[in-house]
């Protein structure tokens, strides 16, 4: 069983988000980066599968050298080896194209991504990779079992769940429930030092999208608390300020 897990390098959930003055890019100074949490779930499930049935887990990231720390963490958690496609990721298609290019040459049985990156929230890479490789794709997998070359999955859908099967190879995106994230142990951290991390040149990809600008959500306005017994004031304010009655 050869599994490829796509990992994205994203700002820690507690980071303060700011954009440059021209509103075109994110200010990364002072920001701590982590493995995209959904990708960590995908990685953990991949490790559980190969620990039980044998095989290898390769992690791939499209990024510049600054993502190496995140990749090392994936190796410390237990991935067999890692690949970094040496390019700043520009949009989902660019990323998907790089991943597909690498995957084509290595015949993976299963390619897993997170359901979405928690920074740009595109939720597109998995389906694009599947399309580029002409493989089936299943999104938002919350349970994944493999038996005799067939994956049985449970997907999250609005108000319920969907059960489905699909023969391998397959591209899937993972969501909560698929596994519990693991904290690496010291043995893992030590062995990550010597595990291979291959740096591969990116292929040329035409940019299909262009960002015009980013904006933060408006700060919430103050809440006007009115005492429960003061119904008259509430009615007045709804009339004069909120202008709804």
């Amino acid at each position, binding site marked *: 069983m050869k599994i490829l897990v796509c990992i994205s390098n994203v700002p820690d959930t507690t980071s303060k988000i700011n954009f440059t003055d021209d509103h075109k890019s994110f200010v990364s100074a002072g920001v701590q980066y982590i493995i995209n949490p959904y990708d960590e779930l995908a990685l953990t499930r991949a490790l559980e599968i190969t620990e039980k049935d044998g095989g290898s887990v390769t992690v791939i990231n499209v990024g510049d050298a600054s993502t190496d*720390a995140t990749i*090392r*963490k994936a190796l410390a958690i237990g991935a067999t080896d890692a690949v970094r496609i040496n390019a700043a990721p520009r949009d989902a298609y660019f990323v998907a194209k790089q991943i597909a290019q690498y995957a084509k040459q290595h015949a993976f049985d299963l390619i897993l991504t997170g359901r979405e990156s928690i920074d740009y929230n595109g939720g597109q890479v998995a389906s694009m990779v599947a399309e580029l490789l002409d493989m089936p794709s299943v999104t938002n997998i919350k349970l994944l079992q493999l038996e005799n070359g067939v994956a049985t999955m449970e997907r999250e859908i609005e108000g319920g769940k969907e059960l489905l099967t699909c023969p391998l190879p397959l591209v899937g995106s993972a969501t909560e429930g698929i596994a519990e994230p693991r*904290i690496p*142990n*010291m043995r893992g*951290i030590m062995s990550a030092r010597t595990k291979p991390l291959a740096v591969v040149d990116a292929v040329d990809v035409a940019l299909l999208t262009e960002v015009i600008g980013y904006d933060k959500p408006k700060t919430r306005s103050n809440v006007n608390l009115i005492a429960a017994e003061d119904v008259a004031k509430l009615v007045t304010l709804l009339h004069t300020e909120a202008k709804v009655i």
Partner: protein
Amino acid sequence: MATDRFQAPDYYLLDDLLSEEHKLIRNTVREWVKKEVSPIIEDYAQRAAFPKHLISGLAGIGAFGPYIPVEYGGAGLDQISYGLIMQEIERGDSGLRSTASVQSSLVMYPIYTYGSEAQRKKYLPKLATGEWLGCFGLTEPDAGSNPGGMLTNYKDAGDHVILNGSKMWISNAPFADIAVVWAKDEAGDIRGLVVERGMEGFTTPETHGKWSLRASATGELVFDNVKVPKENIFPEIKGLKGPLGCLNSARYGISWGVIGAAMDCYDSALRYAKERKQFGRPIAGFQLQQKKLAEMVTEITKAQLLCWRLGVLKNEHRATPQQISMAKRNNVNMALEIAREARQIHGGMGITGEYPIMRHMMNLESVVTYEGTHDIHLLITGMHITGENAFGG
């Protein structure tokens, strides 16, 4: 206890001085503490129970013998990694850090440094995995700050020695599988030996009623004509420099550890001050509270720099015992004062176990006393700079 929302202050961007591996190690231990320690520690401390189930986790994150070479089961890490691990564990609780300090610096370190090859092979791998826990017996009822006055002793009896005496205030004693014990031989020289649980005449009664390090077990070691095989004596070391070498390593770890306790108190106080409103505004907006918070982060930053530099010197084998004394004394006092101020910022809430402050504060009262009291470390610096011995005796 409420969810652990800890965020570490790094006012001088000291992360830039750490390697990627240092940060990975620190963040891993931090994550482990958030997941395994924070949710349960208050309850264990309130009940004065040691969270035994955390031992394998502590071993997993490398807390037992991080700088002991890999061939003996350690992690072969540098001294800054050791410091960062202690910092993060003590961010959770000083008692748990004490367990790790004792195992690493007071049990594994002497076995590795002073022990025979057979002793290293026998004990170190099992100590590294936490299968065995160790304790360190130096202090006695009548020999605390002055360990040279110890009475515990042994007499030669052929292929073994007969050990008599008692030790008190010994961390991990009640459940330790082995004890590194310091005792005088017939010539009156201090020697180290490993006493194993189960040896006849060796008992470890628990000390009850502590108001501090409540989640760490403390006890006595009582030796009543204990037959200890001669192969359990450290061949290499004689005199006070044996135990003092161990204490150097442990004190170094404590200098880092207490930064963790201080950071936790500061982080909690800062958040509380921003959220708590009185007189129509967050209390963080009052000058008196700002003075406290600003001084806290200043002191933490200084302590972080001190430790980082000491770690570099230690990696280069250039850190002196006197430099380590200075860091232990300064940093423990810094943490204790921050805990006291942070307690006040939390108002009445700081009195309950809802917040970690009072637990840290009480824990630090032991930390300021063990491994050389605040006074003793000052005398060490004083003697070093003046050349005058003010210890008396």
